[in-house]
C-alpha cells in the first residue's frame, strides 16, 4: 500500500501540492491525471522520494518512506522516468542489466541474464539485445528503460512479503499508438496477474479510462477526485478541471471522452 498523508510542497510561497492524501493499493493500475501544472509530477516525485514533502508524510506499506534505506527502497520499487540522459555507448543488454544493481553484490549471474532476456522479450526488444543503446530511436530507448525497471522488480519473494511497486512518469509520451497500448497493457497485467502495485502519471484521459483501475485526478495542487475510473472521470468533472466541453461517450462497451474545443463552441453558438 502506497499512501500519502496530507502532503504539501511549497515552491516560492506557492503550494504546488496542497494537503494531498491518496491511497494506492497493489494489484491495481493507478493513474494520476490532471492538466499541466496540476502537481502530477510533483506528487509522483514525492512517491519516488525524489523530493521530500514540506508537510505530511508518504508511507510505503505503513513505513514512512524517508525512513527506508535507499538500497532497500530500490529493491521494493522501480521508477521509469519521463526522459533519460544516458549518452554512453552501452549495449541494450548492459542497460537492462543496470536494473539488477540493487540485487547484486558481485557480478551478474545467469539468473540475472535470464531476467533481463525475459524483460526485453516482454517489451518486444529482444532482437535489439546487442545493439548499441545510442543508436536506438526515442521510443525504442523508452522501451529499453521499461525493460530495465521490470528487471529491477524481479526478486525472490515470499508470499507474505509486501508487493513491489512500479512508478511510471508519463510512460507513453515517446511511444507510438501500438506501444502505448502494449506498455499500459503490460503494466495492468503486472498488477492483475502478479499483484504488483503500479502507478502511472498519464496525460491521455482515454488511455486512463481504458486501463486504470484507480484514478487520482489532480487540479491546482489538490486532489479533485479519486476512485474508480468511471466514477472519477465524469463529463462534468473533466469539463471543470480541464476547462473544456467534454462528453463521455461509449463505443462497443468502452467509454471514451470527446472534447469540443472553445473554437468549435464559438462556431456552434454563432
Amino acid at each position: 500500500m502506497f499512501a500519502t498523508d496530507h502532503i504539501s510542497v511549497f515552491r516560492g510561497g506557492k503550494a504546488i501540492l496542497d494537503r494531498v492524501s491518496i491511497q494506492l493499493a497493489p494489484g491495481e493500475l493507478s493513474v494520476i491525471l490532471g492538466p499541466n501544472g496540476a502537481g502530477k509530477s510533483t506528487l509522483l516525485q514525492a512517491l519516488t522520494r525524489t523530493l521530500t514533502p514540506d508537510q505530511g508524510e508518504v508511507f510505503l506499506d505503513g513505513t514512512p518512506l524517508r525512513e527506508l534505506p535507499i538500497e532497500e527502497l530500490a529493491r521494493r520499487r522501480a521508477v521509469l522516468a519521463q526522459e533519460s540522459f544516458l549518452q554512453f555507448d552501452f549495449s541494450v543488454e548492459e542497460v537492462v542489466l543496470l536494473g539488477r544493481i540493487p540485487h547484486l553484490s558481485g557480478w551478474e549471474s545467469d539468473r540475472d541474464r535470464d531476467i533481463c532476456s525475459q524483460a526485453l522479450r516482454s517489451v518486444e526488444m529482444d532482437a535489439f539485445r546487442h545493439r548499441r543503446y545510442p543508436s536506438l530511436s526515442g521510443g525504442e530507448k523508452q522501451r529499453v528503460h521499461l525493460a530495465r525497471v521490470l528487471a529491477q522488480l524481479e526478486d525472490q519473494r515470499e508470499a507474505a512479503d509486501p508487493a513491489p511497486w512500479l512508478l511510471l512518469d508519463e510512460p507513453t509520451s515517446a511511444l507510438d499508438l501500438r506501444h502505448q497500448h502494449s506498455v499500459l497493457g503490460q503494466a495492468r497485467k503486472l498488477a492483475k496477474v502478479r499483484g504488483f502495485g503500479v502507478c502511472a502519471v498519464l496525460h491521455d484521459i482515454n488511455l486512463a479510462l481504458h486501463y486504470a483501475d484507480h484514478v487520482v485526478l489532480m487540479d491546482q495542487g489538490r486532489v479533485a477526485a479519486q476512485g474508480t475510473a468511471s466514477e472519477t472521470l465524469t463529463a462534468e468533472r473533466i469539463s471543470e478541471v480541464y476547462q473544456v466541453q467534454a462528453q463521455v461517450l461509449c463505443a462497443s462497451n468502452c467509454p471514451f471522452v470527446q472534447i469540443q474545443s472553445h473554437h468549435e463552441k464559438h462556431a456552434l453558438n454563432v
Partner: protein
Amino acid sequence: MNISQSLPRSMKAAAAREANPDPRARRRPAFLILLAVILPTAGFLALMTGPMDLSFAKVAGILSNRIGIGSASEFSMAEEVVVWNLRLTRVLLALLVGAGLAMAGACMQGVFRNPLADPGIIGVSSGGAMGAIFMIVLGSRLMPEAAFEGFRLYAVPVAAMLGAVAITWLIYRLSISRGQVDLVSMLLVGIAINSLGGAFIGLLTFMATDEELRTMTFWGLGSLGRANWELLLPGLAFILVPLFFLPRYARSLNALLLGEKDAAHLGIDVRRTKRHLIVLSASIVGATVALCGAIGFIALVAPHIVRTAIGPDHRFLLPASGMLGAGLLLTADIGARTIVAPAELPIGILTALIGTPVFLFLLLQRRRFQSIS
C-alpha cells in the same frame, strides 16, 4: 548424422555470433591480458633505453642484484646508478602518474557523464597547480629554507590536492543544471579556470629567481625529470592509495551514467558517492600535478581508447584505463628522453600531439550526435 555438420556454414557462424555476439564483451579478457603483458615489457624497454644504451642482460643483472637474488652479468657502478636511481624511479613515476591520470579521468568522465571531461581541459589540473604554487610561494616566504625542504615534499602535493578538489567542486556546481552537466558550461568554466591558472603561473614567474625560472615549463607541460626515490613516497601515498579505492565505485559509476535521479532510484546514495568520487579523482590529479606538472590528455585518451575497444562498463574501464594510461605515459616519456637526446622534450608536448586530435574528434562526434537528437 551430426546436426551441426548438416548446417550450412553461414548458419553455424550466425549461431556462434549468437552465443557471444557482443564483440566488445568478447574482446575484454584478451584486451586486459594484452595490456598486462605489454606494460612490464615497455617498462623493461624504458630501463634499457637512453643516452647510455644497456643490454637486456645488464638491466636484468642490475635489478636482480638489487633485489638480492644475485647477478649473472657484469656491470659498472655507473650503470647501476643509471638503472636503479635514474631510470627505474622515472619508470615507476611514469606508471604511477599515467595510471593515476587515466583512472581519475575515467572516473571524472563518469561523474560529469561526459567523455570530454579531461582534468586538463576543464581546469582541475590548473586548480592543482594553483594550490601547489600557493604553497611554494607561501612556504618559502614563511619558513627558513632548510625547514621548508623537508616539509615541501608532502605539503605541496597536499596543497595541490586541495586546490584540485575545490576547483572540481566549483566546475561541477557551475556546469550542472537540472541534474544534467551542460557541456558548454563545463568547457567555458574550464577556459576561465585555466586562464586564472595561467595568471598564477605568471605571477610565480614574476617573483621567481633565475634558477626557479628554468623549471617553469614544468607546470605548463609537465616532466618526469624530477623522479627519485624520495619523490616516489608521496606519489605512492597520494596516488596509489586513492587508486585502490576507485574500482569499488565501478557499479555506482555505471548507474550514474543513467543520470543522478535514475541512479538514486537504483539505490545509489548519489550525493555521498559523488562527493567521494570527486575527492578521490581530483586529489589524484592534484598529486600528479604536484609531482610532475600538468601532463595533459592522458586522462582523455586512455579511457576513450578503452571505451571504443571494450565498452563503457566501469568494472573493466577503470583497470584497463589504468594500465593503458601507464603504458601511454611510459611510451611518451621514452620519446621525451630520446627524440632530442641528450636534451629532453617536455612530455606535455608529446601527449598533446596525441591528445588534441582525439579531443577534437570527440567534440565533433558529440556535435553531430546532438544535432540529430
